[in-house]
Each structure stands twice: as C-alpha cells, then as structure tokens.
C-alpha cells in the first residue's frame, strides 16, 4: 500500500496542487508535504494523492553509472 510512483511535474496551481505525468497518465497531487521547492519539469515521488519527495536526477544518474561501473570492473 505504500506504493509510490515517479512522475514529472507539468503544472502547479495556486492551491499548491500539481499535475504530474507518469509516462502519459496524468494525475493531480498535492504539494503540501514536499520538503523542498519544486518547479515544472522536476520529478517527484507521489503517494496517495500527495507528492512526498523530489528526485535528484543528477544523483540518481551518478548512482546508476557507479553501479554499472562496479559490475563491469569486477571490483567485488
């Protein structure tokens, strides 16, 4: 039930609700619980009608590259 899904912010209204795009599906989520400023184009994780986390794209990419590198280089 704690399912959360990543989506991209398409618009934000004056009541602090955002429309997010989850590969083609659009949903409305409330931004009241997110703990850092977000803007259009940001990816957020949403759960039960609320965005709960902003995904740091750079960090995610770096981490994935690092994993690929580790696996390729047989470090372990």
């Amino acid at each position, binding site marked *: *039930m704690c399912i*959360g899904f990543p989506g991209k912010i398409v618009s934000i209204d004056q009541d602090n609700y955002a429309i997010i795009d989850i590969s083609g599906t659009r949903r409305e989520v409330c931004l009241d619980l997110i703990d850092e400023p977000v803007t259009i184009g940001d*990816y957020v*994780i949403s759960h*039960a*009608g609320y965005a709960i986390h902003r995904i740091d794209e750079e*960090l995610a990419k770096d981490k994935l590259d690092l994993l690929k590198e580790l696996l390729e280089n047989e470090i*372990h």
Partner: protein
Amino acid sequence: MKFIDEYRDPSLAKGLLDRIVKLSKQINETVTIMEVCGSHTYAIGRFGVRKMMPENIRLVSGPGCPVCVTSIHDVDVALHLAAQKNVIFATFGDMLRVPGTHGNSLQKIRAAGADIRVVASAADCITLAEANKNREVIFMGIGFETTTPTIAATIMACCKKGIPNFSVFSAPKLIPPAVKALIEDPSLNIDGFLCPGHVSTIIGANAYEIIVQAGRAAVITGFEPVDILEGIFMILTQIVEDKKTVAIQYSRGVKPEGNPRAREVMMSVFYPGPSEWRGLGIIPESGLAIKETYQAFDALKKFTVPETHSVEIKGCCCGNILRGVITPNECPLFRRTCTPLNPVGPCMVSSEGTCAAYYKYH
C-alpha cells in the same frame, strides 16, 4: 518510463545476481533476510527474486502490509462505523474484503446497503464531504509512515476550511517499533532487513539504528528488480565484511534525514500510543491517535462504538505469516479453502499480502 525502466535492466540484474552468488559462497551458514514492506513482498514475487537466490540465502516476509496487520478488532470497529445511518465510509480499496469477526467485510455490508466508497487519497474525502454536507464522511485511516502524513495533511486542510462533517477512524501504525519487536522475538533469527523504501522517504535512515545495534544488517531498498537485488547484495556485503550500518540503496527516493516536513505535519495531528498488530500483539508507541486539538475530526470521539468481542478467524495462520515464522505453504488452508477469490484471512486479500503474493507467483 523514467526512473523505472533503468532499474529493470536485465544485464544489471544478472551482474548483481552473479555477485550475490559469489558472496553467498563466502558465508557458511544460512542467511535470513526479511523484507518488511508489502510492496517488496509483491515485487519479490512478481520478479521471481526468491527463486533466484542461492540455497543459503532465505528471503522471508514480514508485517509490511498495512491491511494485513490491522487487528481484527479495528476491522470490527470499521464495520460498525460504516454501518451507521447517514454515514459515507471512505476507504482504500484493499480494506474492502478483509474479514472481521463472523466473516463480515466492508464489501458484504456494502452489498447490504451501507454507503462505502473507495478512495485513492484521504484528500478525496474533502470533495466528498463538501458535496454531501448533510451526511458524515468517515475515512478509514490505516497505513504506515508513508500514508499517515497524507491523512494528517487532509485533517489539517479540513480544519482550515472548517469542514464539520469529516472524521477519521485513526488506526495507522509505525514501522520502527515493529522492527524492534521482530528483532527481540526469540523464534526469529533475522540477519538482515530490507527496509521499506517509501516509509523511509518520510522517516529517514536514523530510525533503523536499532537494527544495527542488534548486530544485523539494514539496507533501505527500492522496488524494482535491480533495487531489490542490489539491496540483497549490500546486506550480504555487510555480513561478509562484518560491518553493519544503515545503508541506503534507494537513494533516488530517500534522503538520510527523510522528509522532516511530512513528519512535522504528521506529529502535529497525531501522537504515539500503543497499537495492536495482527500477529505481533500490542506494541507500545507503535500506533497514532488524533490529538485533542483535532478531536473534532476523530471518528472515535464523534461516534459511540460499543464494546466488541473480536475473535480471530479460525484456522488462519496470518499471525505467524506476518512474523515470518512460517510461509504460506505451511498453512493448512492455503490454496485449499483460502484463495484470492475466497480469502479466509487478510494476508490473502491484499495483493501485498504474503499469502496472495505466494498464491500468484509460487
């Protein structure tokens, strides 16, 4: 799909699996890893992770499905509230088919005339209450730390808007006290925990220090196959190197400090108290009740609930399933009288329930 497909890459999964096999050969004993989150249980079943594991790596499921751990008493109270006159009872869909004492369920009483609505968010109740001003909307407030801030934010929004006909039957639960109970249970011997991704989005990494202090490994893990395999790999690394820490595999979804704002919202509406878990019994400080400031939104204050004598379902072993003591195959009713179409216990109802996941994928 961005932030999903990359974590389903077969070559990454294969690479991780090879490392898991290598590491497992460096360990002589059986390693027991528990996933605490129902979404992990579901994903492990769906992607066949359990079957991929080397012989000495055992994956067991814990109490991570909020519907499953809701006590039968709370189910009975929900059934009572939902049957009241002039009430619209709003709930997450998973709760509908969970049987209470005498086999009643929200679905059954709905068929008999109760007005029960399935909502995707507590916030949906705001519109529902505004559109039905002469009726009482009650929301079934179950969930862990991921969901509870959303319930709290909804209560705060209703308070601000002055909505008088909305209340919550508060039955949420907190994960760390349950993890502590599992560590202390002598019948269990868990070497490492795959800690729940989205609960940790809110509570952060510190909350799991108790695991490390007890000498077990802890890795906060995401929900895609690469995430889960990397989580297992990280646990095995901690065991082989004998260096236990709370590590974050799911760093794209979890910051070490969690989400303090969501916690603040949650704790301005709720306060911790004892809570009864199916299978684990009453655990101190593991539940949340509504503070006095918001008691106008507390269904248990607004409505009188008579003393109910709740009785566990006969023959159902959900209690032991939720503690990871047995697997569904060991329940005599599994696949025989108990199936997803005809669930005897809650673990067969929700798709995140261990019995339902085993039924579908094993």
